[in-house]
């Protein structure tokens, strides 16, 4: 890295560059939406798996655990084939190279994290909590909610981990988001494309923004969690 690249990086990092602000906000929106969607379907799935006894439970848990490490390039490529406008089974939705496609892809990517971590958090709750809620008059659903409330901290951590995985991934963003200037460009794809164009300074600036964003959001969420814990 030359001195000039470093200076450019520092300048871009501290300047209020409209493009960088736009990329950062889009990244936060895409990853945040993906984490929210994954939580919306992942937490109920985890609740059912953790609280019900059925044949094949161990097998399903193993599958979700294994999928945590799925390579983003492989998932991105599969989604590219699925969303492909000419031959993909979901091509009619015309989602390829849109932020929506990236949101869907990242939600699928992080669902195993949410499900596996939430299962662990729910299973760690004292098994008598559900019975306690019931003996105090709770219905089955209210008792399940009481268990979920006890597991909230673990589920919260699952959400943070999922968001981190989503905002930092490149494979899916590249394959289904592409690099459409002003439309699908994200922090990770921005770093990659600037590197291809030999704009080392801009790449470094985007990387610093990505790391700072992840750190700041994690710090803020953990501070809120800590403050709530003290109440």
């Amino acid at each position: 890295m030359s001195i000039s690249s470093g200076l450019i990086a520092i300048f871009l990092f501290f300047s209020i560059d409209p493009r960088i602000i736009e990329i950062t906000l889009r990244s936060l929106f895409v990853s945040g939406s993906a984490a929210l969607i994954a939580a919306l379907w992942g937490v109920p799935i985890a609740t059912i798996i953790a609280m019900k006894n059925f044949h094949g439970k161990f097998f399903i848990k193993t599958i979700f655990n294994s999928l945590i490490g799925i390579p983003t390039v492989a998932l991105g490529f599969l989604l590219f084939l699925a969303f492909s406008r000419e031959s993909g089974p979901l091509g009619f939705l015309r989602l390829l190279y849109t932020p929506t496609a990236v949101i869907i892809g990242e939600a699928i990517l992080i669902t195993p994290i949410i499900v596996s971590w939430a299962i662990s958090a729910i299973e760690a709750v004292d098994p008598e909590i559900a019975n306690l809620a019931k003996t105090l008059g709770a219905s089955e659903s209210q008792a399940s909610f009481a268990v979920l409330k006890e597991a909230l901290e673990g589920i919260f951590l699952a959400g943070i981990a999922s968001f981190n995985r989503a905002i930092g991934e490149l494979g899916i963003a590249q394959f289904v988001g592409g690099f459409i200037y002003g439309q699908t460009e994200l922090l990770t794809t921005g770093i990659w494309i600037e590197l291809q164009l030999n704009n080392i300074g801009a790449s470094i600036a985007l990387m610093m923004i990505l790391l700072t964003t992840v750190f700041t959001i994690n710090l803020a969420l953990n501070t809120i969690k800590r403050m709530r814990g003290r109440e």
Partner: protein
Amino acid sequence: MKAIAVLKNVTRTFTNRTVLDKVNLQILTGEILTLLGPNGSGKTTLLKILASILRPTDGEIYFDGVKVTEQNVERMRMQSTLVFQKTVLFNGTVYDNIAYGLRIRRVPEKEINYKVTQILKLVRLEGFEKRSARKLSGGEQQRVALARALALDIRLLLLDEPTANLDPKNASIVEEVIATVNREHKITIVMATHNMFQAKTLPQRIALMSDGKITEVGTPAEIFGKLSKNLASFAVVGNTFAGTAEITEDGITLVDIGNDVQIAATAQSSGKVSVFISPEDIILSKDRFSSSARNIFKGRITEILDLDSVVRLKVDVGKPFIVQITKRSFNDMELNLNTEVYLAFKASSVQTI
């Protein structure tokens, strides 16, 4: 007296193991009924079935004459509540814990506020509303659990070994509250215990349980008076010893329980008797010290059971004694398996049966 709950041929099995076997029992309105039996006799399972949080594999349960079914089980739960042996608390404040059942019943927050304050007074935890429930001591936690149950307008209170893991101070508060709510609020109470002394003093009736069956039901006088084979066999587990009593010249009863162990008791009796000493009444020390206690024995620790705030020890003095001390005492005294210790208890602490 009218029965509030009736169990007819109630059976419960867990993966081919029968925990309750055709239990027939009537719980009379306004009484304190104790389920007395050793660990594994089915007391907790019976309480969970009465609380409608566990369904029987076979048999029928009637509450106020209405059969409990899958359709009405959630409504039936509103009539009773169970306080677990191992204290279970929600994450949150004491107030949130006590308010939980009231909020489920959609009681207005103003009324909840009043009820929480009143019930905390009853269990002697005034001003504890904002304290984190899980950060309280073991005894205080159990009193919060009791308060949470009592805050509800229930008709049947189910208690699973309510004083098993408590120090004497907390145990006596809990016993006092149980007696008060039964006497003043007319709440029917079913309490599981293996504490013979508690079973002798608190309830109006006792149901003896053994291997998932109810073997005898009667008043404490009836049950302890005839000292059935079932009671004697179960009693082995909890500082209860069978022996021969003899009244000495100075008016003290000496009970020979075998293996050269003689226990002094103040109660006048002779011939075949059983004696019981509450684990909480036994003082444990590493050195022999002078005291007014008539019973002092030297022995070795053969078992250590950590029960959160208290530690239960088995000490072999020729006969096995169960002793309960606080965790802090246990740590301060640096006790271990095989440590030589002295047990001391007053002759007045010995209950003869």
